[in-house]
């Protein structure tokens, strides 16, 4: 990982005596390489290395027994600081139901996440309703119906011929009249560049005014994470992000990109296909992962 690379870099440099600015540049190049290989986006890497340059040039590194380790420590600390968030819980409504809207690209894990959130709430004694508004994907409604059965919560659908905004509004009325405390709205995967589909999610948002809108992002996402996050946050009021498939071995640099570019908190981590595979987000863990 970065530790070993920096140790090697500094070993070569230290043998010449005092560290120079050029030496630190060599170290920062290693940092840049590690972050790019971890899928952190190009511009974010540039900003990040500039931000830590001053510390890297400081006394702590110059005087350190192991300057390589000192630079790693600076990088790690800065990563955790950037990845950490000020708000990690889910919003709740003053008068129920609380409305949660899930959005994101195709295949990012929204339907599975809907099931995971529902299961979490049900276990705490809540009464979540799973709502199917994906009128496009073959068997999407059936998929969420099976998910609802598997986690043991009520399910709401109105087929695939009506507008998602209309289905969502009807679901909220249904939740109210049945005293269900949370409505979790699953939506179709969509491209941030598909104007019609972005209009659709905006319409759903306007129809029900969610208390919590979550962007569901695949942790395997590469450089495109910045585009996706920027466009979705620009279209609907995204409150937080969920990163999925963290049980894989992707370094997860998309997490840093999205934090740096949108400032939205990462609230949850999807860590498996089963409905209990949901964790609150731990910035230190993903920081270590990004460092490699």
């Amino acid at each position, binding site marked *: 990982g970065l530790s070993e690379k920096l140790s090697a870099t500094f070993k070569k440099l230290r043998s010449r005596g005092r560290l120079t600015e050029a030496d630190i540049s060599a170290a920062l190049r290693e940092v840049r390489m590690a972050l790019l290989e971890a899928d952190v986006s190009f511009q974010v890497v540039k900003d990040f290395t500039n931000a830590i340059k001053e510390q890297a040039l400081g006394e702590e590194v110059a005087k350190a027994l192991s300057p390589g380790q000192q630079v790693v420590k600076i990088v790690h600390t800065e990563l955790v600081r950037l990845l950490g968030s000020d708000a990690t819980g889910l919003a709740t409504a003053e008068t129920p139901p609380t409305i949660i809207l899930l959005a994101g690209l195709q295949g990012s894990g929204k339907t599975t996440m809907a099931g995971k959130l529902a299961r979490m709430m049900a276990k705490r004694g809540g009464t979540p309703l799973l709502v199917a508004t994906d009128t496009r994907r073959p068997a999407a409604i059936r998929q*969420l119906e099976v998910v609802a059965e598997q986690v043991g919560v009520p399910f709401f659908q109105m087929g695939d011929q009506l507008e998602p905004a209309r289905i969502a509004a009807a679901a909220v009325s249904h939740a109210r009249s049945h005293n269900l405390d949370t409505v979790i709205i699953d939506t179709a995967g969509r491209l941030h560049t598909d104007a019609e589909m972005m209009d659709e999610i905006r319409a759903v948002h306007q129809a029900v005014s969610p208390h919590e809108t979550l962007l569901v992002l*695949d942790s395997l996402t590469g*450089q495109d994470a910045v585009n996706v996050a920027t466009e979705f946050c620009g279209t609907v009021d995204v409150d937080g992000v969920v990163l999925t498939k963290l*049980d894989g071995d992707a370094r997860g640099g998309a997490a840093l990109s999205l934090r740096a570019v949108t400032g939205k908190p990462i609230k949850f981590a999807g860590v498996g296909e089963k409905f209990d595979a949901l964790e609150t987000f731990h910035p230190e863990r993903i920081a270590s992962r990004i460092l490699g």
Partner: protein
Amino acid sequence: LTGGRQVDEGLFDELEELLIEADVGPGLAAELVAELRREAESQHITDADALRDLMRSQVATLLRAETGTPEIVPGPTPPSVLLVVGVNGTGKTTTIGKLAHLLRKQGRRVLLAAADTFRAAAIDQLQIWAERARADIVRHQEGSDPGAVAFDAIEAAKARGADWVIIDTAGRLHTKSGLMRELEKVQRVCRRATGRDPEEVLLVLDATTGQNALRQAEVFGEAVGLTGVVVAKLDGTAKGGIVLGIKKRFGIPIRYVGTGEGIDDLAPFSPEEFAHALFE
């Protein structure tokens, strides 16, 4: 990016940045730009447009398969078997629907095997694609053995005279050794049923995936041996540059690209078009 410009240091930096932002990876991007520099020098290239064309042809050459066509080729006797694999949510099931349709348009008889017996409504999803593509389908109960589905599908294909059997498998992260062993077992079943390796084992990659795609290609390749890659979701803003690393390191040809959610949104891979789009 170029329009009438002269070649300078800044231009090489810009090209490297473009490659990195296309998910080519920092190491390979640096390598390609270094190679471009040497070539530009030896060809005395001073015009930016000419440099960009040189880079395009360099990328296209890297991506070009050694064999003529990128498309899948049937085996000596029917049924030919195509096994579709990959991590979760990349577009395998949708790609199978599109491939079935493509083969049907070529007059082939196609049978789909619903061997994702795990994920909610996976079988129902494939069933709909089978109907849309006018292909046969073999399916068992949810939770049944994927190998058994594959076996029955191949037997049914023999009985019905199908040209191709396309096997849909559950998405699985390559880090899950139990699931990778399950996939190897499905492939062994195919071998037993036909007496030969599947004609094609295609890895479906999501165009938005970053450097992890290299790991996917490596581990799936070690487990079942890949004969090709399909890049799905190229209709977004992601460039899918990861295929350069995959082709360079593992030599696996890129066969098709997915450009949408409709049944016609699949095209045979074109190195020139891909290289062109990379520099847009």
